């Protein structure tokens, strides 16, 4: 006796949260059954393995049919085929996580081009992270799908993502960061950067979207939140005089040192390193005209600033005091005319550096 056909269709679509998770995590039906057996569900309910198998198959089939709709969540709201209470629809998309992603996975693909080439690497990522290939594919496809939809759209990136994928504010911000990184192809995979979490990058992305993109100056352009403001990057060259002009550099240093004397535990180290640090920060800015250097932004920041400070054991609070003073003192440099440009650059960079400065 073999079961040819075995289905269960409810007027309200039954969705088992645990099976949904197993499905999202990319387990096959038989693996999912095995995992469910291990969870002790048979003992709890007195069911047989055959019942569990049939139940799991049924859920997988439903999810498979739902997946098409999950690709465009607003469709899930309007579709008539599955009657799913609104509260549950939300759970499917967000809380139980069709659009949720694994930290380990996102770190692997963050800043990479969301193309077929990267997709081919998913095998390796799967092996490396221990996340099933299916799950990697889903997460990757989610990134790509969101990217494609919002890429050329007008208006706030976060709002667009929220509207088209019905994600929570929090998750939409994360996706905005992923899209932003993918679009600008920031390098995040170098060994030096391994200590950074997705949260660190997402934080920086948000600051950069807010201040460095086209949308920061004009909210009526295409791609406003995705592309960096090219004009702004060009202008950043002007900052170079801060380190190129020796008098300006000395004046800047003395202003900072005067203000921070006695307030910094690592004052002498700061004093000794000031010129190097300042050169580092300003050169990073000046280099941003080239796409290649934009990509290396985080590598540069870590190399030029985070690492030197860390090797001198600066406490975070000293870094904060230094950066505040470093940015503010420029306003007192009479010979320097690009105050607004400096603030737009340094305001964001300060936030990023503080976030990046940890072990």
């Amino acid at each position: 006796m073999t079961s040819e056909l075995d289905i269960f269709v409810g007027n309200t679509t039954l969705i088992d949260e645990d099976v949904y998770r197993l499905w999202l995590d990319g387990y096959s039906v038989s693996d999912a059954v095995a995992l469910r057996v291990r969870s002790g569900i048979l003992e709890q309910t007195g069911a047989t393995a055959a019942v569990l198998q049939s139940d799991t198959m049924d859920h997988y089939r439903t999810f498979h049919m739902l997946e098409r709709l999950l690709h465009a969540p607003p469709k899930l709201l309007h579709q008539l085929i599955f009657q799913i209470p609104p509260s549950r629809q939300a759970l499917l998309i967000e809380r139980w996580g069709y659009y949720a992603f694994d930290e380990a996975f996102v770190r692997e693909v963050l800043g990479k081009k969301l193309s077929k080439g990267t997709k081919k690497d998913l095998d390796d990522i799967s092996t490396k992270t221990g996340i099933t290939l299916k799950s990697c594919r889903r997460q990757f496809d989610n990134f790509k799908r969101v990217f494609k939809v919002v890429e050329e759209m007008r208006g706030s990136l976060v709002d667009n993502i929220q509207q088209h994928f019905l994600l929570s504010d929090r998750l939409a911000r994360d996706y905005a960061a992923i899209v932003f990184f993918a679009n600008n192809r920031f390098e995040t995979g170098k060994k030096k950067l391994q200590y950074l979490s997705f949260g660190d990058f997402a934080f920086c992305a948000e600051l950069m979207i807010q201040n460095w993109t086209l949308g920061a100056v004009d909210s009526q352009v295409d791609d406003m939140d995705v592309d960096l403001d090219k004009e702004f990057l060009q202008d950043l060259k002007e900052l170079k005089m801060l380190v190129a002009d020796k008098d300006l550099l000395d004046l800047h240093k003395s202003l900072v040192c005067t203000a921070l004397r006695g307030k910094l535990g690592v004052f002498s180290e700061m004093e000794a390193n000031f010129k190097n640090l300042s050169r580092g920060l300003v050169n990073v800015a000046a280099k941003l005209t080239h796409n290649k250097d934009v990509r290396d932004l985080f590598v540069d920041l870590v190399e030029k600033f985070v690492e030197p400070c860390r090797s001198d054991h600066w406490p975070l609070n000293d870094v904060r005091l230094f950066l505040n003073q470093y940015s503010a003192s420029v306003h007192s440099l009479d010979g320097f005319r690009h105050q607004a440009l400096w603030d737009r650059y340094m305001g964001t960079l300060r936030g990023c550096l503080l976030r990046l400065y940890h072990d």
Partner: protein
Amino acid sequence: MPGKLKVKIVAGRHLPVMDRASDLTDAFVEVKFGNTTFKTDVYLKSLNPQWNSEWFKFEVDDEDLQDEPLQITVLDHDTYSANDAIGKVYIDIDPLLYSEAATVISGWFPIYDTIHGIRGEINVVVKVDLFNDLNRFRQSSCGVKFFCTTSIPKCYRAVIIHGFVEELVVNEDPEYQWIDRIRTPRASNEARQRLISLMSGELQRKIGLKVLEMRGNAVVGYLQCFDLEGESGLVVRAIGTACTLDKLSSPAAFLPACNSPSKEMKEIPFNEDPNPNTHSSGPSTPLKNQTYSFSPSKSYSRQSSSSDTDLSLTPKTGMGSGSAGKEGGPFKALLRQQTQSALEQREFPFFTLTAFPPGFLVHVGGVVSARSVKLLDRIHNPDEPETRDAWWAEIRQEIKSHAKALGCHAVVGYSESTSICEEVCILSASGTAAVLNPRFLQDGTVEGCLEQRLEENLPAGCGFCHIPYDELNMPFPAHLTYCYNCRKQKVPDVLFTTIDLPIDATVIGKGCLIQARLCRLKKKAQAEANATAISNLLPFMEYEVHTQLMNKLKLKGMNALFGLRIQITVGENMLMGLASATGVYLAALPTPGGIQIAGKTPNDGSYEQHISHMQKKINDTIAKNKELYEINPPEVSEEIIGSPIPEPRQRSRLLRSQSESSDEVTELDLSHGKKDAFVLEIDDTDAMEDVHSLLTDVPPPSGFYSCNTEIMPGINNWTSEIQMFTSVRVIRLSSLNLTNQALNKNFNDLCENLLKSLYFKLRSMIPCCLCHVNFTVSLPEDELIQVTVTAVAITFDKNQALQTTKTHVEKSLQRASTDNEELLQFPLELCSDSLPSHPFPPAKEHLESASSNSGIPAAQRDRCSSWIELIKLKAQTIRRGSIKTTVTVEKASPMGEGNFRNRSAPPCANSTVGVVKMTPLSFIPGAKITKYLGIINMFFIRETTSLREEGGVSGFLHAFIAEVFAMVRAHVAALGGNAVVSYIMKQCVFMENPNKNQAQCLINVSGDAVVFVRESELEVVSTQQPTANCQPSCTGGEVTT
């Protein structure tokens, strides 16, 4: 020109991509009614076209309005080649034809294609202007209301219940016409869908005409079926109960019937032929409690009372017809004569109702059924379907005579069915013989006062159990005792019926689903020989099914079956029998005796030991079941009841016969002779198997109950969470082990496993009850068995239930360890706001984990009508591995209720689809039905030539059933309704050809579209009554299930 149909095509959405090059579609719509077609403009390059058409107007006869469906076809415009069809929507406009139902059909309909399934949606508005034509009812029957519900619909009152209406129409099946060889599967499917839609329209109109002839205004318990006879044609037949219904203006108004429409020929015998005795005996005391219009004389009942000591003690209340003593013969004759005079005018005194107004059902005789095996031949003249009519007339005649033999003048809970395999067809009919109170069958004017007094004296809760037949002249040997409730009249020891449990019946404990399952192998044969083989097998099958039912009933410690439905299915090489019923313990009937096992070889020691072991097991099971179902009837000493009457025992109320192709009627005595206790003789392995199979039926897990009637006896604290579902299973038998025993085991396992799966799937609803569990078996191919189940799971309040269940959980179910008990007590708040259940974590932690996960009080969750709000509330993703270090501000600050409402959701989020409930029951727990919008009767075909790509047979059927549900819901929503009651999937014919990667399925569903209002919201709504009707969807807004 009595009607103008107006249609407006508003917009489409989610259309499929028809032009690969542009990834877009140039869609337009054809609107067709009868032979008239209108077209919209082509809306270029869009998947969400906005046609916003003018009103297309069709001027049509109301006859056509009833027969024809409105056909809407969405096409993709193609400049160079033929336009491609995207899909179709058929809209039955019948609901717009009665005054009280829907006034407009407006909403999003799924665009359906028989090959691709649902492909987007279309927004349509339909209106009908009916002209007030004096001849309006000449050819059409506009205005007659149809209900699938098999009881008087909730917001109506029955003035008169006229009786049986039936009709059938036949046609050639397009699938078997010569043209089918040259047309596409799509064209053929659409031809079939359209034809069936037309035929059901015509059928409904014809039945409506009959109702009008009877001066009724409605059909209740309308059951329409299709017989796909293959080569020989397509039969659409329907039965129902004609009634005159009055809309209840307010729930309180329940006046006696006085103002019915004018008298009509068929009713006259009731009124104009009054029994003189009735009027004279009415006031006289001895007759009171059983006097209806054709009751016997005063003098007679005095005579009869002298024979019984018990009766003489209470001479005042007299006795029923059934307890008639010596004068039985003449009395019966008299009664029968009068019965005849009363109901003879009706060809068939049948009622498709299963639940009745109080006082309607006087006595119940038992189940009557008839089957007949026929050979199908081509229907030569579709306009005169005489043979099919004659077949059914024959069977009905048989049923009628069976009922008469039981001393009954009517049959209630009546239904008909067929099973077809190749050219052999089994026609079946069954019902419950009953004696009815004629008050409802005629103008109530004559005996208003009399009836009222009668009701006062009718013993509550047991009257219907009293035997209607003559004790000494019984149609079969029966064991009678005095009623355990009133102790005045005779009752049988068991009672089988096809109706629902009467509301006033006194039941002890809870009920349970009881099934008898049986397979019999049959040799493959052709035509006549095949029919003969089948008719030879039938009596044995019936006998065994009946024995199984009886054994299982006794094993449960119960004494009555309700909702009995015996289905016999014929296949190429086997016959299947499946009987389902709900067992209960009626307080009025005696306690069932146990089951005794007897061996044939008493000398063998080990054998005897085995026997006694089995006996013990059986006794234990009975005891356990009694506790499980809380059957603890009060002990009654024999003396009170009176000495047992020396009488033959009887096991059966089942009287039936089968006949092959003609009039020979074999009647089968199902009683087991005159043995005192129920003895099972184990004389061969077969019998052993039987006993084993008795014991293998596993009771549902704790917290679950199941029944196939509307409601579960013993549970009344239903909560509002319901889940209707359909489950289908097909198994393939390995041809090697085809013995009767192996077959039986396979079939038994199939059913049991299916039930187990249901319990597992619905475990988050515990404590709950599966109601109206409806099994259908079919044999699509040689070695395939298909079982389809539709039922509804309803949760009930565990707080009240616990008081009763706890005792039995504690006592009896040791195996149900603490885990199970915890599950049972797992609070329902979580389920009722449709939050995820947490089946995995250990039961103890259920509560904490569930509530801490959400972090929001349940009450607030309820109020989140828009899910965007919900998201914002629970913004955090709690997911393994993903880091969400930042604490969202929103989450930290609990929002007030005001914030919820004010928060603006994203533009696309606020037009979510309204929830439409579906249930096979005639009511919705915790809610009040305020309006019936019309009957839903839909027929769909789905075919695929890429079975593997669609996920195999399971994927294909799963998607199709989901689509059918969706289309039903969309139609209900467009009518302005928010639920379908009395929903039934009448047919689910599935055929596959895996080698060709093909499959086809036909589904026929029906139900009543209604508007319901939650009882909790009733007060609010009543203050704004005028608006409530036009925006019913708002009522479903709160909790969705």
